[in-house]
């Protein structure tokens, strides 16, 4: 029997015992209240009612408190009643109120319950009074029976360590602004597990508000079943969150766990089969029916949380299946060539601990993992940690600090692609009730203000030597990625359209990911982690492909690139710039990095066998006219030669060089010259 189970049995036993029996101090007895028999009778009735409600489950503790408090107002000096009230408060969101009642119980009778000191320590820990908590944990250890110690001893060490961590985190609190997400998002019920897409334009979360699908309550905790809600930002303000209804939500628990960076796919949690992960996609403005992920991901155990990688090629998920490092662990699985999930791999002991891990979120930068854990250096319950995957290794998880983490459970944290904003659920003063969703604005690394003094004065100077204090270095911490987003439209009618977007590594010549724009809005969003030269090809049936190139250097800070793309139908006169055709400087040999773009041209010529095209070369204004003319002709011919070698009839291909005669941008800047140096594709007949 494991230690946790023994502990639970002891707690249940103790709670049951002390809830059903009365101890010392001023007991609820007629002899103690000879002149107030009627009130005594009511008080005892209230205790009985409280006990009955208490027994119905944790979700009703709050209701039990109401009865207990009525009895307590009649006789505030009963140790056991105070203990019960404290215990109930400790299990609600008003945990801070537990301290007063536990302290009162302890003062009235320090042996009111064997675990009173332990619970008091817990209450102090949850209220961030760490020194008091440590003191009570130590007192509990020194007074507990040997049998209790065998169960609690290891736990006490962990709790004391948590308190020490708490003190450290409290002394080094991180600079953030925490804002309630507002009444468009939050309700008077519990709203939690928020996940945002990469550019923070959509927020998806779980709520237990009264308009859930089916409108029923879970008898386990007397709260409404969970449903998924979605909100979109309009002019930087959250629009009213909406319940998307069926098929996303059902009459039972439906909870958010993962949201793809482009906002087009969702992972959700459903309680069947011990708890499984499902996926659904946005088709226009409708969510498809959730599909259970394969058995490589879902098992008979509990799979509770999942996150998309930036390229949709990997899934990070949480499972408590056997064979891990203890409790729930985080796993990763990759898609095989058929798009099926491979057998998952445990992320290993750097990430997973003997305790539970939960709430996994992979940042759109493709390397920073946020997750919650009861292990590592938590300050109590689940804390949120981050770890970065670099050079084939996960970095030691870092507690993201107070005030985001608290001694209570902090689970589900999602971060915008820019790294500036995070979202999580918490209970705070002036909230809307229950758990609320909050946004966290990070202020970057601490920036110490600079003091200027005049030190080291030289005696002979009437004016002293002026010196300044040496600055502390700030390490950049913004996300290293670019967000590429925009709308894809049909050039003819300007209507948004669905198109396939392929992202590939130009240097490696490999396709990294493919996406689709939304069929209704034409919107797309792609995360491009820095350190690669990306080629992007947008394709749709009946249209010429569109190509873009984004070279994101390794040290590039977060940038957002808005690129609206107008797709040209396959018809005579349509032309595109081939942005991923590369030549060496002043040469006309095609570089190997051009291969994917060349293959795209080849594909379209194969798809339209009667199409005749013109490939034209263009230069900037540097160099002589004759030189530029020759270079542009040879470059155009190089592309044509490639296609002829691939088997395209040479009569379908025209190579033209225009030198610098058709510049499309200024030659005064490098950016302009770069635009001028280009290769174009034009349909001459079809």
């Amino acid at each position: 029997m494991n230690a946790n189970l023994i502990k639970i049995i002891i707690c249940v036993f103790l709670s049951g015992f002390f809830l059903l029996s009365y101890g010392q101090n001023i007991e609820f007895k007629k002899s103690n209240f000879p002149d107030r028999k009627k009130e005594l009778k009511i008080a005892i009735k209230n205790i009985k009612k409280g006990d009955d409600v208490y027994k119905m489950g944790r979700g009703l503790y709050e209701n039990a408190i109401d009865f207990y408090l009525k009895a307590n107002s009649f006789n505030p000096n009963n140790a056991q009643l105070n203990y019960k009230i404290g215990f109930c408060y400790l299990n609600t969101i008003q945990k801070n109120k537990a301290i007063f009642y536990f302290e009162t119980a302890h003062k009235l009778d320090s042996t009111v319950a064997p675990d009173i000191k332990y619970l008091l320590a817990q209450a102090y820990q949850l209220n961030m009074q760490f020194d008091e908590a440590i003191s009570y944990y130590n007192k509990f250890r020194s007074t507990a029976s040997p049998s209790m110690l065998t169960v609690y001893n290891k736990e006490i060490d962990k709790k004391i360590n948590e308190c020490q961590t708490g003190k450290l985190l409290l002394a080094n609190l991180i600079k953030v602004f925490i804002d309630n997400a507002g009444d468009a998002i939050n309700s008077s019920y519990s709203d939690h597990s928020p996940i945002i897409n990469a550019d923070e334009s959509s927020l998806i979360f779980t709520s237990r508000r009264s308009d859930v699908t089916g409108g029923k309550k879970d008898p386990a905790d007397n709260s409404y079943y969970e449903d998924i809600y979605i909100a979109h930002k309009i002019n930087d303000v959250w629009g009213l969150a909406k319940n998307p209804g069926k098929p996303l939500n059902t009459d039972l628990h439906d909870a958010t766990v993962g949201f793809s960076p482009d906002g087009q796919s969702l992972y959700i949690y459903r309680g069947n089969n011990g708890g499984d992960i499902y996926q659904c996609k946005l088709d226009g403005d409708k969510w498809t029916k959730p599909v259970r992920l394969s058995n490589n991901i879902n098992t008979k155990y509990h799979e509770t949380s999942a996150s998309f990688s930036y390229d949709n090629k990997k899934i990070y998920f949480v499972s408590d299946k056997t064979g891990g490092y203890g409790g729930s662990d985080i796993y990763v699985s990759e898609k095989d060539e058929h798009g099926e999930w491979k057998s998952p791999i445990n992320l290993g002991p750097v990430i997973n601990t003997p305790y539970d891990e939960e709430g996994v979120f992979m940042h759109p930068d493709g390397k920073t993992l946020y997750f919650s854990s009861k292990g590592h250096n938590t300050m109590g319950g689940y804390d949120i940690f981050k770890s970065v995957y670099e050079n084939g290794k996960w970095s030691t998880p870092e507690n993201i600090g107070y005030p985001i983490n608290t001694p209570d459970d902090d689970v589900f944290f999602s971060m915008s692609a820019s790294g500036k904003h995070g979202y999580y659920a918490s209970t705070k003063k002036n909230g809307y009730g229950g758990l609320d969703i909050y946004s966290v604005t990070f202020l970057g690394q601490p920036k110490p203000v600079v003091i200027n003094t005049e030190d080291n004065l030289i005696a002979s100077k009437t004016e002293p030597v002026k010196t300044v204090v040496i600055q502390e270095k700030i390490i950049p911490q913004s996300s290293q990625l670019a967000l590429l987003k925009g709308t894809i439209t049909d050039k003819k009618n300007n209507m948004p359209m669905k198109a396939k977007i392929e992202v590939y590594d130009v240097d490696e010549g490999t396709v990294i990911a493919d996406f689709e724009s939304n069929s209704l809005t034409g919107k797309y969003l792609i995360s491009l982690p820095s350190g690669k030269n990306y080629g992007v090809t947008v394709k749709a049936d009946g249209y010429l492909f569109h190509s873009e190139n984004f070279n994101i250097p390794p040290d590039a800070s977060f940038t957002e690139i808005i690129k609206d793309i107008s797709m040209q139908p396959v018809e005579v006169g349509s032309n595109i710039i081939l942005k991923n055709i590369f030549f060496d400087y002043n040469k006309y040999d095609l570089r190997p990095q051009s291969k994917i773009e060349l293959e795209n041209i080849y594909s379209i010529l194969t798809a339209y066998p009667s199409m005749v095209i013109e490939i034209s070369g263009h230069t900037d204004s540097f160099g002589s006219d004759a030189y530029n003319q020759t270079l542009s002709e040879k470059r155009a011919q190089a592309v044509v030669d490639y296609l002829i070698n691939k088997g395209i009839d040479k009569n379908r291909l025209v190579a033209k060089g225009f030198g610098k005669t058709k510049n499309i941008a200024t030659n005064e800047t490098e950016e302009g010259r770069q635009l001028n140096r280009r290769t174009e594709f034009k349909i001459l007949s079809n």
Partner: protein
Amino acid sequence: MKNKNFWIFILLIISCTSLYSQKDEVIITPNISAENAYNQALFYLEKQQYQNAIKLLDYAINKNPSFVKAYYNRGIARFQNNDYIGAIADFTRVIDKEPSATAYFYRGQAKIAVNDIDAALLDFLKSAEKDPSIAEVHYNIGVIKFEQQKYEEAIKSFDTAINLKPDYAYAYNDRGSAKRQLNQLDEAIEDYIKAVKINPNMAFTFNNLGSIKKQQGKYEEAISFYNKAIDLKPDYYIAYNNRGSAKFDSGNYTEALADFNEAIRIKPDYVFAYNNRGNAKYKLNMYNESIEDYTRAIQLDANYGFAYMNRGIVKEQLRDETGACEDWQKAAELGIENAKVVLKDQCNK
């Protein structure tokens, strides 16, 4: 009546020969010799009446254009009268005719005054070559080396100055400052202590002691030395500013604020104190008031990059992201390295 006029004439002659006019301006007796004028100039030099000395020496040089000693003394008078260009010209004439260690030394000092430091160093080195026994020459070489951030060479020159003049309090102070730059903090403290033992009235040395203790994180000792500096010189705004910074560094922002207030009261255009007071107010959550102080500092010195940097930090706290980025942009333009990092990190610039 004729008798009366005669006595008035005699009185006028006497007043001329006593060399004073009613406004203490010398009136040169007509036709006196160059040597006579030169000798009279020495009298005024001793009395620190440099204008009169210059007038007489002008006369002497006019009478005798090759009068080297007159050039030399006029150089001294012009130097003392803050006419450094004139002094340099005079000492150059001297050096051309009769080069001496002292002429090079004074020309070097005049060149320092006009910020021609490299040329001054050459003069001091020439002076030391001609006569290596002048402690002040080595001291001045040390000061230039210090300003050129050649601290080890500076220390060698201060060593020589101290060997030549063992009670040279200034040389001890400055050697202490050079050692501090080399992070030889204990040795620096020894030199400062030696300096104030020789001359216990050097408020700036107590200020230096305070600053070195502050650097060591010994804030109470630092404050005690700054107190001593302020006792010696009650209007010592630099010491108030520095004491405030020690209190700031030790987390006592309220008392720091009081010191910065006092520094500003004494010197209302003291730009550092405005910046620092802004910092103290920021720490006391007086964000709007702190911005006013940084803004005042910027008004006083438009190139004060740190004030822009700090104001940006407070604007960020006030959630004025645009304003913060604008300030950091300006700070970055003014060469503040941290601002460049923050701009890239948080403003995507």
